């Protein structure tokens, strides 16, 4: 699997993502600078976490208008899989590639901790490494992860099976206690309609090693490699 990671000024989890992708695929991803107008042909494009352009204006808003995004949108429209994590999720909602928006956390504070994450469907090229309904422990680290869309949109994406992950509590239940940031219907990640674009807030790239943070994130990368190699 050949992959590319988009790097904006202020991106800061690109190294973590690169390590996770290389570990799973055996191939180091290409790092694509935001000013590059053309993303090379790859099997997967990743928009990683961080504070692109300082998150000034609004998280992800400026990155969504950077030169490299034109190429990303073009490739996405032709079916190249795209995955946005944390700030990358924010960028993908800002570009309109994914439905909904990410608002300031309900608690108004940055939050970094492991959360319970339920895999809503294993039927995608991103989540094939997991079981339906599997509950993972994966860290979040964000200030603006409060997923919001109007009820009509939420109903529609649920019906279409576009919800990828939901926050759950210790018992695997979809409760308020298990929802770290106030996200609508505990939604932690969504697909586009075709399930070729995925965005989510948690950081599986920080959960790939038993010595530091567990291995629950591996399924995502291993599943991607199986689907795209």
């Amino acid at each position, binding site marked *: 699997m050949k992959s590319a990671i988009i790097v904006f*000024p*202020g991106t*800061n*989890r690109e*190294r*973590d993502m690169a*390590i*996770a992708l290389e570990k799973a695929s055996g191939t180091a991803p290409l790092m694509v600078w935001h000013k590059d107008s053309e993303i090379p042909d790859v099997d997967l494009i990743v928009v990683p*976490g*961080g*504070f692109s*352009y*300082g*998150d*000034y204006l609004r998280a992800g808003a400026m990155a969504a208008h950077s030169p490299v995004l034109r190429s990303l949108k073009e490739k996405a429209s032709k079916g190249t899989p795209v995955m946005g994590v944390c700030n990358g999720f924010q960028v993908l909602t800002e570009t309109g590639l994914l439905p909904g928006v990410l608002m300031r956390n309900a608690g108004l*504070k*940055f*939050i*970094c*901790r492991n959360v319970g994450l339920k895999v809503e469907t294993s039927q995608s090229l991103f989540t094939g490494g997991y079981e339906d309904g599997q509950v993972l422990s994966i*860290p979040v*680290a964000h*200030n603006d992860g409060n997923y919001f869309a109007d009820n009509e949109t939420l109903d529609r994406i649920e019906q279409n099976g576009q919800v990828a992950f939901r926050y759950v509590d210790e018992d695997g239940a979809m409760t308020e206690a298990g929802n770290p940031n106030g996200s609508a219907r505990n939604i932690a990640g969504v697909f586009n309609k075709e399930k070729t674009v995925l965005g989510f807030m948690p*950081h599986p*790239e*920080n959960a*790939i*090693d038993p*010595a*530091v*943070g567990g291995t629950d994130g591996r399924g995502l990368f291993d599943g991607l490699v199986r689907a795209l190699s």
Partner: protein
Amino acid sequence: MSITNTAITPEIVAEHGLSEDEYASILKILGREPNMTELGVFSAMYSEHCSYKSSKKWLKTLPTEAPHVIQGPGENAGVIDIGDGEAAIFKIESHNHPSFIEPYQGAATGVGGILRDVFTMGARPIANLNALRFGSPDHPKTRHLVGGVVAGIAGYGNCMGIPTVAGEVNFHPAYNGNILVNAMTVGLAPADRIFYSAAAGAGNPVIYVGAKTGRDGIHGATMSSTEFSEDSEEKRPTVQVGDPFTEKLLLEACLELMATDTIIAIQDMGAAGLTSSAVEMAGKGGLGIEMDLAKVPAREENMKPYELMLSESQERMLIILKPDAASEAEARAIFDKWELDFAVIGTLTTTGHLVLKMGDELVGDIPIAPMVDESPEYDRPWEPTAASAVVDASTVPAPASLTGALKSLIGTPDLCSRRWVWEQYDHLIMGDTAIRPGGDAAMVRVRDSKKGLALTVDCTPRYVKAAPETGGAQAVAETWRNITATGAKPLAITNNMNFGNPQKPQIMGQFVGAINGMRAACIALDYPVVSGNVSLYNETEGAAILPTPVIGGVGVIADIEKRGTVAFKAADEAIVVIGETTGWLGQSIYLREIEGREEGAPPPVDLALEKKNGDFVRGLIETGSVTACHDVSDGGIAIALAEMALGAKGLGADVTPEDGLAAHAWAFGEDQARYVVTAKNAEGILKAAADAGVPAAVIGKTTGNGELKLGTGDSISVSMLRSQFEDWLPDFMAAS
């Protein structure tokens, strides 16, 4: 030549924090009156912050050498060899006054400043720590200050993408008018690729990179060197404004530049901005430096030389490049890529003078060597602190039940969980955090290896106040113990000396005592000082803070898989206390919180015992003989056991107080050099301890019932303790 254009009155001299003697020395050095710009330069260089004039005499007595020390104090940060061709680079620094005036920006720029100190030496920062001290929770400003400081640290460190992995937070009324915000950064670099600040090569270009210069933070170094008064809050404009996004770009640009072969020297612009960076670089290189201030990238119009030289605008660096055009072009391209300013603002000279121009106009000319050599150094009079009486434990009333007292204590401001704080810090980015916040020391893996760095910051100011020498030694020993409790070998420290007004002999006595204790501990533990910072005049309306020599410790472990952690692992394991328990209640949290008595002599620190016990415990962890390990500190054995149970799920402990000691003194006494460990088999540990001459005693066993039992018929559920432990800080912050 005459560049004197403003009459310097005694009032102007005093406003610059310079004494009459210091001003007389300036007249002698220049052979004439200074102009305002020059006076400003001298004022910054002679401030306590830059000159260490009250502390230098004593700091020099600290041990700074060891085979593994690559660079001791005197550079931007200390450097130690951690093996395999790698170096750890670290330092701690205070940002106390700005954080009190404007908590978010004050704390944020404190983090930004210490990060620059570390990456200016060629290191990629891999961890941040902080030591925070606030006033009483009852004080009307405390909640606002806690919220602002924590958010500021989070805002800066999170955006930079550096994990904030450990720290300490304490509350005491002595900090009501003067909080402490001490930030530490640890970075990694190849041991043969360290960058230093000494300039070399007359004629070489002086390059300014990073953010533009504005009018913020002018005279920050001077402000931090005076006492606070009621009108200090009017000094808000002197607090710098941080931009972590720009600093992130600066970090990446500098590391990219450092991978080329173009740099001769590099220095960040921290306190006293362009003044101290230019003087330090040229001074260390024995050279002169000429700068055209009109070429300094300015954020505001019509900035005067005085302002340009003294601005503490953040996210800026000064670099001496190799003189060839190719080097400059290569460097410029990197900063262009990162969209940062890059300006050639001057050259190194052979004159030995700091020559400042504004276009063609000469606006300042100071001989550097005399200015540095004549830098004031005081032998301030000091009075030793009178010894406090030892508290006889038998005179301290016993509580109704040990677990009742434990339940109260674990929900007090100084012992409760800091989760509310560290969950706001991204402590997992970089994917190498092997021990998360909340343990004895944090542990961060060295990327692409099995090796880990154990990191901690500690100080027990109430001990230092009662007995400065004991307290200074204890602060060093506690970091050593916390690192040891993870199985790592402690290597070196950085210190942040936070004290009151050194012109008061009793305050100076605290400083001298603490240094003496620290020195003894560093020598006994083979644990040198490689960097540090001094913050004096931490007083408001004449009331000083508790003497607070914060120690940041760094240790290394060969294999993180072998690390020791706090949480109980399984039921029916033996619980062993290593070290001697005498039931020392003087200056204990128990005495203060339960009896309302903050008094007595602190527990003695026996450094030989500290070393012996610690080396023994580290050996147990190395050989896999223990399943959990926790040092015993504030709150004694009972708090240590509670924390070990809280770290696990559904486990508890059943222990019995030692015969011959009052049970509450046994449970809550704060004797030093102790650890609690758990083991599947205690026999081997007891035998090895006896062979090594280390006191060790089985006090009970872990249980699977989620209860903590302290003696016959006295137990409490761990879930009850957990809510006490977890709720205090969020409840306090949520209240209005």
